[in-house]
């Protein structure tokens, strides 16, 4: 059943949101927020996971969620006090629940050992609440979510002959006012009985008052139904399930011993009616064991009821990634659900539109229309409109980084556990939106930055005490928009980077010259160099085969930058900056040896036409450019990429001053500049293969393909050799 599978996908998506809500709710409670609605929201999250899991028969998940939910319900109902150690337990239980969901997603079940251990812990709290400890109960008699042990009342009846033997039953029922008031209907009851077999109905109208005295909303009629059927009594009883307590009902087996002994006579109808009439509101007609009084079940001692959940402010999670196309359904006026492929297609089409518009503009210009002409102005407007459409379309696909941030508290807990450090994670700006293409890829670098911050940045509790800091370290994860990019910051209040040590390691590993003059910032950023690891022993956490160099590389692959700044004794901050989308890019179009290339605008500091005197040759191939007071290495794009053997004389061409993460500033040498343009990124990897120094490709206004430069990679390719040379690095004097 296809649609059911689709709902299952929705279920798991929803689970992720619910688990996020669960965790953030628990974290708020942990942080001291006493808002009662938080407990309700947390309860609802577990409850919803359980509900959906039940629908798909995910037994193990349901069982665990049930125990978890029971404890949360006790807390919600005030039966169990919410102590700090309990909150920690709940957080760990949330992790186990998440494991179960993850396992169920793959068609398996959560780890039995950790589940059993957690269930035991949870049950200790469930039974240890202020309520008297219930005796150990068999699994099928566990208290339900209100902590009430549900006794299957219907099963306490004496054994009845089983087997599909046809029998005759006399069912007499007298609806009360309540039955109608709750929108139940006597006629429907008769119809349901009729479904069970052959019926013979008699209307008992004795109690009907005269017309003038009749209150139209008071129930007076009763019915006696003779039913010939082979279904068991439970089935008949089920008909009256919804009207228990709102209807005096007797169900008597004819022609064989009655259900409950005492074979007096047939039911005295008049007496029933009279009694029911008298006790209309009291619900319990005074009759004898002969009758099975359904109303009695209802009027058991009232159980403690949880107070009505107060009004909550939990935003309805909406996921634009739902697989379901909207089919005239009305979920929430505020959101619609769209197949993500449709949006991707739309974005592609708008990309084509941008290219087409640029081509048109170029052709029009080629025909000599001035920018101030009608045609030129019209084109301007078209361009503006095209951009607006593009922005709007991109906004559809934008998502808050929350989905990524939500996964981090657990990671932090795990790393903290492994390192023996105490960590509090503070997040900020989780509603910052970024294109889906970026969202999908920021999780990994954030994970590494967090690992690094906790493993290398934070001190052990003892060290912290010695340094006069609180034992618990703080790691801050924040997202913000800055300059058309998204910036992710991971900061810690740890010891900061040990610069002399970092420097020494870099020298020992031949990454920098022994006498290289580096600014503090440059020293800090040495940790991103390939093969660098600050820990003398590779730790279990940061040493999982991924150094910060790999992180930087993957970030660069996204057109992003990563850097670190540090204050010894006060901590370090990683700053990751990424484009808001991987679909379009603002670039500078340049010409190198007859090739048209695009340099991402974000990397460019400025463009210069250097004087011959400012260019200094160094060795056979290298050179530097004097920019104000500093020397900047020259990078001949054509030569580095290998499509030109002769050098461009920087004095004859144009120089683009760029900022790279690897080696600070560099000067890219080109023949000429064509100007700025927004280009649509076409992946080279998916259309061709990865090429060093090239980030992607695009199609220009004139229809030609142009390559988009990967500035950092390009500079690194140029720098790698000189850096290993014994001569002093002059990459960025002062």
């Amino acid at each position: 059943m296809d649609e059911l599978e689709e709902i299952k996908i929705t279920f798991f998506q929803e689970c992720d949101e619910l688990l996020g809500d669960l965790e953030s709710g628990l974290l708020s409670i942990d942080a001291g927020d006493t808002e009662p609605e938080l407990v309700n929201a947390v309860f609802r999250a577990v409850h919803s996971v359980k509900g959906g899991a039940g629908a798909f028969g995910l037994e193990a998940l349901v069982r665990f969620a049930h125990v978890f939910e029971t404890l949360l319900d006790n807390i919600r109902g005030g039966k169990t006090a919410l102590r700090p150690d309990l909150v920690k337990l709940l957080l760990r239980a949330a992790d186990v629940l998440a494991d179960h969901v993850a396992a169920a997603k793959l068609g398996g079940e959560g780890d039995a050992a950790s589940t059993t251990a957690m269930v035991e812990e949870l049950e200790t709290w469930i039974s240890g609440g202020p309520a008297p400890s219930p005796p150990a109960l068999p699994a099928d008699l566990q208290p339900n979510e209100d902590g009430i042990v549900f006794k299957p009342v219907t099963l306490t009846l004496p054994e009845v002959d089983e087997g599909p033997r046809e029998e005759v039953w006399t069912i007499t029922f007298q609806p009360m006012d309540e039955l109608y008031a709750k929108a139940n209907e006597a006629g429907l009851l008769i119809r349901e009985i009729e479904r069970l077999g052959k019926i013979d109905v008699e209307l008992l109208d004795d109690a009907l008052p005269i017309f003038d005295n009749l209150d139209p909303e008071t129930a007076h009629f009763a019915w006696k139904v003779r039913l010939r059927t082979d279904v068991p009594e439970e089935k008949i009883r089920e008909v009256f399930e919804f009207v228990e307590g709102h209807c005096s009902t007797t169900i008597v087996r004819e022609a064989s011993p009655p259900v409950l002994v005492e074979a007096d006579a047939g039911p005295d109808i008049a007496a029933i009616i009279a009694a029911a009439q008298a006790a209309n509101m009291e619900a319990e007609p005074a009759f004898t064991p002969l009758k099975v009084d359904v109303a009695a079940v209802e009027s058991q001692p009232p159980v403690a009821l949880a107070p009505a959940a107060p009004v909550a402010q939990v935003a309805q999670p909406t996921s634009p990634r739902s697989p379901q196309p909207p089919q005239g359904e009305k979920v929430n006026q505020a959101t619609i659900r769209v197949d993500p492929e449709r949006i991707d297609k739309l974005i592609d089409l708008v990309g084509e539109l941008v290219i087409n518009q640029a081509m048109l503009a170029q052709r029009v210009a080629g025909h000599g229309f001035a920018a101030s002409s009608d045609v030129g102005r019209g084109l301007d407007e078209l361009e503006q409109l095209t951009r607006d459409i593009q922005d709007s379309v991109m906004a559809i696909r934008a998502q808050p980084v929350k989905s990524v941030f939500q996964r981090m508290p657990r990671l932090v807990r795990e790393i903290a556990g492994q390192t023996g450090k105490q960590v509090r994670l503070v997040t900020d700006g989780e509603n910052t939106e970024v294109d889906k293409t970026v969202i999908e890829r920021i999780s990994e670098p954030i994970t590494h930055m967090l690992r690094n911050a906790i493993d290398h940045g934070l001190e052990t509790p003892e060290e912290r005490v010695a340094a006069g800091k609180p034992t618990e370290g703080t790691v801050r994860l924040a997202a913000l928009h800055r300059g058309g990019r998204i910036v992710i910051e991971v900061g810690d209040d740890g010891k900061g980077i040990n610069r002399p040590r970092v420097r020494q390691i870099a020298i020992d590993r031949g990454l920098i010259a022994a006498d290289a003059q580096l600014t503090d910032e440059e020293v800090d950023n040495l940790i991103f160099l390939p093969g660098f690891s600050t820990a003398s022993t590779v730790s279990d956490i940061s040493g999982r085969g991924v150094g910060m160099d790999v992180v930087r590389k993957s970030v660069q692959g996204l057109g992003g930058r990563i850097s670190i700044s540090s204050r010894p004794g006060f901590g370090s901050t990683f700053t990751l900056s990424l484009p808001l989308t991987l679909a379009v890019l603002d670039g500078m179009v340049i010409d190198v040896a007859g090739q048209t290339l695009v340099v991402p605008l974000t990397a460019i500091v400025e463009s210069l036409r250097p004087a011959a005197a400012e260019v200094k040759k160094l060795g056979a191939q290298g050179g530097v450019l004097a920019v104000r007071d500093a020397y900047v290495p020259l990078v001949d794009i054509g030569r580095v990429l290998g499509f030109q053997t002769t050098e461009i004389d920087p004095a004859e061409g144009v120089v683009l001053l760029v900022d790279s993460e690897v080696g600070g500033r560099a000067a890219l040498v080109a023949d000429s500049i064509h100007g700025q343009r927004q280009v649509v990124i076409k992946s080279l990897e998916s259309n061709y293969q990865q090429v060093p120094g090239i980030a992607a490709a695009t199609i220009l206004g004139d229809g030609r393909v142009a390559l988009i430069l990967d500035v950092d990679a390009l500079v690194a390719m140029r720098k790698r050799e000189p850096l290993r040379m014994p001569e002093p690095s002059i990459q960025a004097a002062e």
Partner: protein
Amino acid sequence: MIKVLTVDDSRTMRDMLRLALAGGGFTVIQAVDGEHGLEVLNESGADVIITDINMPKLDGFGFIERVREDAAYRATPILVLTTESDPAKKVRAREAGATGWIVKPFHPEKLLDVIRKVAA
């Protein structure tokens, strides 16, 4: 065609209900919580209402009470979704004005059976 309003904050549950109800030939309209349910009811009306209990903003009990206050919906069958057989919740839901209940997880056919029990 009988119009059923389903009120549930779980998208999964809304989808399950829609699937089952559409299979039974019902028109389905949906709301995500009690408050939204009242809005949708105001705009579109409904012949039968199915509501969850645990919901943000306005829970199932409150929602049912508010629906019953409206004279137009005094006789409209309202079914609550509950997990397991929970007598306390059922009692409470009926006090609020519920007609009956549906136990989660439900089989689509069982759901249709339940609706048949309360809707003409």
